[in-house]
């Protein structure tokens, strides 16, 4: 017997098992490579825009998600591979014993099976890489997603191929080494496969009881395989939950941040050019726009006192937030931190400089409520500031040169005045490159006594259209250069932009779901193959085809529900406690997430039944043969 030909002939002789293993392995590698390419391009998309749009804090939320997803995708792929090769090689223990019993030296048998493992994993990995790359190419050309304008990262191809090949060889060789250590008689013993030597006292059951008993016994007989498929599907459900729950919760949360920062139904009243500039500043979150040479200090932008009086006396207006918007050169002021153990003083930060939009607001009247680290401005005449997340990243983040940097331990200098930084906020205005300062303080520092924009909110009880028209008329009568604009359109634009990002991320669960469903089908096929003889006996002794389907359905359900319980719990914990600070979870969010997950669970369950139903329809004699 040639050492080269035996493994090939053996694999060809066991066509069904060999092709099933190769198909499942191929699917695993395909799904992993495709998902990695997809999320990598998604990462590219975000990286490409984050310099100009999407504030630093929000792009960090996306990046964190993608990194976590990438890790999970790799873990899922690795677990699938481990599962497949383990099943494949575990099934060969008896053959190992048979060949050894026939007098073949241990090393030679080991070589045969190692070659088989090598052939199967190599073919599976090559096919998987080719198909994964092809799937990426097809999706890029069919869907023409924005993210696909970037080229794929070709390094992922050898990376996935290498990792999976090594992993498969390593994990597949493990049961082989174990089998090699067994004596032929032990390897041939049915206990090796059935793994049963003890049982509780006999107690007859109902027909449904016997279905449950047969299902649970089969699962426990294939304990190693069952545990592995539960681990595998749990990882899939974690990935699914993080992407679905995370996608929805993070989408809702970040939308609430943006809505809070801009404010809903807010009306801006300012000079025509100032309103246009303010809208442009808000739009910088979702599209790249140039500030241009806008002179905020132009006195024509000053909101006349008569307009302010008019607004103050208008009964339909319930909220007035007068602001002074400027662009200033700002400077970081380094701080100190006391090391609690040594009580030594450590320098924090440096003296970096930059341009920032500076907005003077009355802390008691501010309309917006930004997501904040630290605390918001609460006194009107103190030298305190809240800075935007992008500014915090640009001027207060550690660099290779600066080990320690934390805006909340440092200060900010505007026009040579020192401001204590009380908080860092996520704010879409000027894409997060913003500094909020109490209005009175800013006016004192700059010597500017006026405000250049007023944000107002109308009472909810008034006829909004009529009230707006009335307001416009009043303002125009006072100064025809002044305009009244609703900011809802900009808000919608920003929310839609954010939504487009999350909906792209929500593509991931669909692909994950598809690959998990295929793996489950693979598992069911293997389970059927392993229990083929048993089902034949049951049917020969009087079980109906639907009984066989029921047994397989129960097995699938047990596996799916156990995985779902573990995976969904871990996924929810990961999303709410690790990935998403201060998540916004409404009852609708819970229903939406639950709907998706139940849909996924139901879909996977129904798909897993396909091989069971097909098998149940197979003629009895064909199964027995």
């Amino acid at each position, binding site marked *: 017997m040639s050492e080269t030909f035996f493994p090939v002939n053996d694999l060809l002789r066991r066509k069904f098992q060999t092709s099933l293993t190769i198909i499942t392995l191929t699917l695993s590698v395909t799904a992993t490579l495709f998902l990695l390419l997809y999320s990598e391009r998604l990462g590219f998309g975000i990286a490409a825009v984050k310099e100009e749009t999407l504030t630093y804090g929000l792009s960090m939320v996306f990046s964190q998600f993608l990194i976590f997803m990438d890790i999970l995708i790799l873990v899922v792929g690795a677990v699938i591979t481990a599962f497949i090769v383990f099943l494949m090689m575990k099934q060969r223990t008896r053959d190992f014993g048979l060949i050894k019993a026939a007098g073949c030296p241990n090393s030679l048998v080991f070589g045969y099976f190692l070659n088989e493992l090598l052939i199967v994993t190599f073919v599976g990995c090559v096919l998987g890489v080719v198909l994964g790359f092809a799937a990426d190419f097809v999706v890029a050309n069919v869907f023409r997603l924005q993210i696909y304008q970037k080229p794929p990262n070709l390094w992922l191809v050898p990376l996935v191929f290498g990792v999976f090949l090594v992993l498969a060889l390593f994990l597949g060789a493990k049961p082989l080494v174990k089998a090699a250590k067994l004596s032929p008689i032990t390897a041939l013993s049915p206990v090796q496969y059935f793994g049963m*030597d003890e*049982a509780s006292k*006999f107690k007859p*059951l109902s*027909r449904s009881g016997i279905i449950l008993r047969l299902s649970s016994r089969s699962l426990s007989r294939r304990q190693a395989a069952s545990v592995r498929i539960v681990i595998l599907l749990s990882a899939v459900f974690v990935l699914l939950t993080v992407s679905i729950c995370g996608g929805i919760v993070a989408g809702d949360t970040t939308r609430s941040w943006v809505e809070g920062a801009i404010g809903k139904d807010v009306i801006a009243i300012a000079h025509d050019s100032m309103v246009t500039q303010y809208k442009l500043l808000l739009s910088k979150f979702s599209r790249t726009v140039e500030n241009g040479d806008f002179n905020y200090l132009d006195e024509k932008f000053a909101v006349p006192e008569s307009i302010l009086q008019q607004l103050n006396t208008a009964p339909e207006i319930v909220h007035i937030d007068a602001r002074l918007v400027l662009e200033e050169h700002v400077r970081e002021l380094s701080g100190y931190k006391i090391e609690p153990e040594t009580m030594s003083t450590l320098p924090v930060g440096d003296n970096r400089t930059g341009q920032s939009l500076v907005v003077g607001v009355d802390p008691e009247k501010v309309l917006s409520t930004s997501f904040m680290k630290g605390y918001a401005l609460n006194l009107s005449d103190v030298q305190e500031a809240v800075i935007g997340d992008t500014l915090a990243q640009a001027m207060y983040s550690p660099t290779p040169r600066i080990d320690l940097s934390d805006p909340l331990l440092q200060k900010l200098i505007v026009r040579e005045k020192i401001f204590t930084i009380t908080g860092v906020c996520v704010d879409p205005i000027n894409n997060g490159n913003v500094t909020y300062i109490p209005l009175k303080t800013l006016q004192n520092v700059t010597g500017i006594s006026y405000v250049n924009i007023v944000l107002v909110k109308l009472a909810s009880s008034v006829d909004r259209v009529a009230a707006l028209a009335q307001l416009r008329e009043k303002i125009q009568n006072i100064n025809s250069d002044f305009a009244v604009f609703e900011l809802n359109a900009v808000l919608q634009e920003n929310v839609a932009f954010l939504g487009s990002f999350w909906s792209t991320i929500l593509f991931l669960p669909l692909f994950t779901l598809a690959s998990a469903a295929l793996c489950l089908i693979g598992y069911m096929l293997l389970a059927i193959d392993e229990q083929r003889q048993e089902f034949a006996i049951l049917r*020969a002794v*009087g*079980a*109906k*085809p639907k009984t066989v389907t029921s047994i397989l359905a129960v097995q699938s359900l047990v596996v799916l529900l156990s995985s779902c319980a573990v995976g969904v719990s871990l996924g929810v914990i990961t999303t709410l406690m690790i990935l998403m600070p201060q998540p916004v979870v409404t009852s609708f969010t819970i229903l939406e997430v639950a709907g998706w997950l139940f849909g996924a669970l139901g879909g996977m369950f129904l798909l897993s039944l396909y091989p069971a139903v097909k098998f149940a329809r197979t003629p009895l004699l064909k199964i027995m043969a």
Partner: protein
Amino acid sequence: MEKDNLAVSAELLCKKYQMGEAEVEVLKNVNLSVAAGEFVAICGPSGAGKTTLLNIISGIDRPTSGKIVVFGEDLADKDEDFLAEFRCNDVGFVFQAYNLVSTLTVAENVAFPMEWQRKPVKEIEARVAELLDIVGLQHRANHFPAQLSGGEQQRVAFARALANDPQLLLADEPTGNLDTANGQKIIQILRMLKAKGKTVIVATHDVQIIQFADQKLVLEDGQLASQNE
């Protein structure tokens, strides 16, 4: 033989299999009549079609042509669900390879055909105990098939086949894989069944079994070569 008294009757029974390109005719125009309570031994060389004939009588397989009537039911035109009920209630089959369910204990293997029928728990327990007593395996009730010898597995297979007290028992080479001692135990069970008046059809080479059969059939190359009352 009176028609009402017939347990099994086969007329011009044919069975062909497709083996790749070739067609193999396993049974050729077999005619057979077995009266209720009769003990029939079918002998013949390996590959003569004994197992195929038993499979068709039990409803596991269907004839390519011809008629097979068991207890008045023409099995050829029945659906899978009917045949499943038929195998569960009316026929006990002892397979050559024992075919015990590896995930069930000895007692559970004997019990499950009764559990399909939703019999009361107490009745099942009593019947399992009775059957295991008959085959001498009460002490093995909670063991799994993998822990039994071939002879013990064959006796469990007999107990399972008798669980629902079927009218017809089919046994395929019941002593073929056993040593003398275990073979004798199986023969004792068969004698007991004959004494109880069960209809039994056994495919066998065992001379001892053939000797006490009421009817001896010889299958050769798919045809009944001789019938010896």
